């Protein structure tokens, strides 16, 4: 994928030559290389080689069985105004214990990156017509978080 930002060892960076390919419904047979497949396609041939592309209607709880083998999970934001991906990310990280790479894909924009990061995403495929270098500036967000989040599980009143 192009335009990818990733957080590695706590450092956000632009990724050169990301090898993942996001694969939609149509393309068959599968091209070679590491693919990110829609849930039902991935389930048709589960493998530790291909990543999973989770849509907002897909049930995160159903992934429990496969978390041990999955190399990457991408959560789709069909529109940046559709906030279901935030709850999916929260559940994957805190309830299901997903430790691998969690990538935001779709309508991923600078002004939402810090919220995504708070909810546990650690890589971001910024929408292709936007500059990833510019989007990087949105990752930091604000210094104060009142509530809690995936990366800061204690609400501010326990840190104040």
């Amino acid at each position, binding site marked *: 994928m192009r335009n990818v930002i990733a957080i590695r060892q706590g450092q956000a960076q632009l990724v050169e030559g990301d090898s993942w390919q996001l694969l939609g419904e149509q393309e068959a047979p599968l091209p070679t290389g590491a693919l990110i497949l829609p849930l039902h396609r991935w389930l048709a041939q589960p493998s530790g080689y291909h990543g999973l592309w989770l849509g907002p209607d897909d049930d995160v709880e159903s992934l429990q069985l496969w978390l041990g083998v999955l190399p990457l999970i991408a959560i789709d934001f069909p529109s940046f105004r559709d*906030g279901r991906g935030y709850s999916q990310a929260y559940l994957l990280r805190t309830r299901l214990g997903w430790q691998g790479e969690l990538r935001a894909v779709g309508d991923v924009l600078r*002004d939402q990156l810090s*919220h995504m990061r*708070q909810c546990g995403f650690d890589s971001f495929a910024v929408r292709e017509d936007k500059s990833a270098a510019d989007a990087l500036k949105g990752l930091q967000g604000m210094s104060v978080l*009142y509530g*809690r989040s995936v990366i800061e599980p204690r*609400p501010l009143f326990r840190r104040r």
Partner: protein
Amino acid sequence: MYHYDEYDRALVFERVAQFRDQVQRFTAGELSEEEFLPLRLQNGLYLQKHAYMLRVAIPYGTLGARQMRTLASIARDYDRGYGHFTTRQNIQFNWVELAQVPDILQRLAEVDMHAIQTSGNCVRNITTEAFAGVAADEIIDPRPLAEILRQWSTINPEFLFLPRKFKIAICSARQDRAAIMMHDIGLYLYRDGRQQMRLRVMVGGGLGRTPILGLQIREGLPWEHLLSYVEAILRVYNRHGRRDNKYKARIKILVKALGIEAFAREVEQEWQHIKDGPAQLTEAEFQRVAEGFAPPRYAAQPDGDLDYGTHLAMDRSFARWVSRNVQPHKVAGYASVVLSTKPGPAAPPGDLTAEQMDNVADWSEHFGFGEIRIAHEQNLILPDVRKADLYPLWRLACEQGLGTANIGLLTDIIACPGGDFCALANAKSIPIAQAIQSRFDDLDYLHDLGELSLNISGCINACGHHHIGNIGILGVDKNGSEWYQVTLGGAQGKASALGKVIGPSFSAAEIPRVIEQIVATYCAYRELDEPFVDTVARVGLEPFKERVYARQPEVSTCAM
């Protein structure tokens, strides 16, 4: 009042800087209209018919004198010299320039205020009743928990793009003056048999296109679990609420589709995972926040003030004002005063000029402890006035056009900005309010009629809460012209009810006559001092319909 510490302050200032940058990027064309829209909405900025409108939060309706003066300065420097108080304890400035909004927000931040999440599909301003902390019938001051909720819901990253807006209200008095049944989440705070604070949780209430009263989802929730329980509700809603149709996206539709039992089970299941986690509130945090709301130092007052008694006996206008606009206080010798923003045609309901705001700020310091409240009826309250000061305060209020003795009466009209400002409106509301106020300008008559609420919304979004007015007026569009539908029997408070439509809608010109006939019918049927809404409940809509839709409207007056 709650006082910001360095965290609260850092957040509002950083937010201003962030929005300043977003406005710049939008102006430079780096952000599209579509991308900018939710960003500006979450900073309170709407695009109205003629200009941008900025909605500023007044959390749970509590405001300090310094903050009120800042609002006045904003009205003066960035608007046309006035502001409009809304039914959700916000203030709106109708004529602001986009380029100046960051400066306005900066000015607000300097006095611990903001416009964060006053719009958009996120958790909105947390509201409570205007007499919190002073009402004689209060159980617990709800404001510490309201402030805790405000903080928790502010920029909570998981819940900024919900299916639709989300409103939470909390109340803790024998009378529900916060309309908690009308909210996405309504919280009722009380003490159990062992004096522990508990919450009754209502969910899925709301007005708008599908008006529904909230249903109880939880009884006896220990207060420590407030945040985790609300989080559970929001997560279930965020995941499962409808997003395909904005008119079906509120949580009430989800609750209705699943049924309250099934919805409650989902929430309970989610809650089990998080309830004993770090979101559990601590006594220390409650105390830290509650300190800000500690009662001021009331001075012991003589039980009966001689001057006050004399004025009451001698000055009929004053006595009338006291009977409507003065509320009992929990401390002897004090009272809460309601300043009416509904003087009649002179000013639209909820509007205050900069000069009036400055005066109210002065009075709050001179006659009280520098605190002001905003009621969801769009009036202002000075919560702590010594009874001995009521007379001089009344005189000053009258001079400033804020002393109308009509609280709870027919002319205390609640009205949204409507077609004069709002881009969504079907019809105007302000001229309708003014026409009714002109028709009923006899205060004696109004006092005889007694409690009667009248609410006007310019469209089905129901910002004027017309469903819960004893008389409700809703602007509707008929082939491009403005018409008005009338409902009767709505009520707020513990006996909340939604009004029923009486029949085909009316033109603007007909409305004063229609209201007059409704009132006349009430007079004909009421027994003794029966309030309007009780008469409607007892006799039903028929007699009203008969009179209002009669071919030749008979002329009748109320014989009293």
